[in-house]
């Protein structure tokens, strides 16, 4: 089910501004890869190119290639909408649809794409909510609005919504930065479980979190202010945190940055 991502010589632009330069890396299937680095270095930008969400922003475009197994995501014949069904995404701030109930939020991806079979939908809602460790908390109030849940629950609802469309890859853009430590722990446990089915890429500002949840870590940095961001180093999380090759990585993870 899960797929490998191969990024090669990726340059990312906002209009004429080159935001990220020369990213080459591989994300193994059924693993968790963490993107770390200072604010503004392009981690989220790189993440958003993995499901073609980057081009939603006016002027957003890329050079280079992103391969999902043997498919080129940026081939001219590739439909961005189809890419996003295969590569799901969870955002920094929980964003359940305010007009929909908990059930409809989880089913949104399938329903809006035309699935009408109620039995099948109910099945997917249940398995997705169970997959997101939310089922026991909400099973008696599926018809209540999704926006009525707590922040942590809302974020797990968004994860349930993302896995309901059965993606191959799950992208998470600082999924815990708006949450308290308990909810963060719940999400991290969930990431550990989801890893057996999905390829996961997570952007985080929390280095302990990167160390806790990821198998592979990529450190991004700016060469200098105004220069494009770049991938400094990528490797086994344990190695990156104990024995980084680059001086900049060591400085950043040991807090001596800047």
């Amino acid at each position: 089910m899960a797929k490998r991502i191969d990024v090669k010589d990726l340059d990312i632009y906002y209009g004429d501004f080159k935001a990220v330069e020369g990213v080459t890396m591989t994300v193994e299937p059924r693993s968790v890869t963490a993107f770390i680095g200072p604010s503004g270095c392009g981690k989220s930008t790189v993440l958003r190119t993995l499901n073609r969400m980057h081009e939603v922003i006016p002027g957003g475009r890329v050079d280079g290639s992103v391969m999902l197994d043997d498919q080129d995501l940026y081939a001219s014949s590739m439909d961005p909408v189809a890419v996003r069904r295969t590569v799901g995404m969870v955002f920094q701030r929980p964003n359940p649809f305010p007009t929909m109930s908990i059930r409809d939020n989880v089913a949104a991806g399938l329903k809006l794409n035309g699935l009408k079979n109620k039995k099948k939908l109910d099945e997917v809602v249940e398995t997705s909510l169970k997959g997101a460790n939310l089922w026991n908390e909400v099973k008696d109030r599926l018809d209540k609005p999704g926006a009525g849940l707590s922040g942590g629950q809302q974020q797990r609802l968004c994860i349930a919504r993302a896995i309901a469309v059965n993606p191959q890859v799950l992208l998470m853009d600082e999924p815990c930065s708006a949450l308290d430590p308990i909810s963060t722990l719940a999400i991290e446990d969930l990431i550990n479980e989801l890893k057996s089915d999905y390829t996961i890429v997570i952007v985080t500002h929390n280095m302990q979190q990167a160390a806790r949840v990821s198998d592979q870590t990529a450190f991004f940095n700016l060469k200098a202010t105004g220069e494009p961001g770049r991938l400094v180093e990528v490797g086994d999380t344990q190695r990156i945190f104990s024995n980084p090759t680059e001086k900049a990585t060591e400085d950043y993870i040991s807090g001596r940055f800047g």
Partner: protein
Amino acid sequence: MSTAQLDTTTPTTPPGTGSSPTRGLGERSGGRAAKDLLAKVVMWLAFAIAVVPLVWILGSTLVKGGHMLLEAQWWTNSQAGITSRREGGGAVHAIQGTLIQAVVTAVMSVPVGVLTAVYLVEYGRGRLARVVSFMVDILTGIPSIVAALFVYALWVTTFGFQRVAFAVTLALTLLMIPTVVRSTEEMLKLVPNELREASYALGVPKWKTIMKVVVPTAFSGIVTGILLGLARVMGETAPLIILGPYTKVIATDLFGGLMATLPTMINQDRTEALQPALDRVWGASLTLILLVFLLNLLGRFVGRFSKVKS
């Protein structure tokens, strides 16, 4: 105040040498209290000035026209066969005409207005969007009599048709479209971008995202805006005088003959000195205010009955 406090305690600036006078924490600043009072008085005065004419209009309309609305025939009869000097008759023909024209105007302007707003907010980029937005701004500023003359020139002078109720609704549509565009635009802009992104990230195409996520989220606001715009247009008089002259009988045909409306009914008898005619003028005025008020009320009610749950 805090800087004054600091000045007295910072050893590098001995007390008394600072430029600002030193004061204790608990003391009230006389100058600031006076300014506060002045601002309060000015604010309340402005409020009173704004409210007085409103209350005055409502009061005198109620006093002079209220009794007309209490008669049953006001709501059941037309003015057919009743001269200015005679009492009696009702306003059904005018109420009906106003409502018919409002509904037809809404049917024509809402789709155009809402879709234009969707274009401007969701799709509009570059020059075309700027031109459309600029045009809407210009259209917002068009005086109603100019819109009426435009439709007259088109409908009567160019095409050679008769002056009918449909021509009135064309002019009213011209006036209503920009208000619908602007209010809908504001509501769509209020929908957080995160919701659009969440929908795209599920592999939902853009048009479906707009129909199933963006518009439902803004729905109550859009409806409220439309109802308020309609209430505004219902009181327009210039297009009615130019394109839809008054008649005393009930008429429902949009394309043939004359159709009475409340504004033209008011206009008809306003120069009369006879009491029965004046009563009718005030009665029709109050009825129009009531209709607009009800529409506003409906707008607020729909606003409360929102699809956004929390």
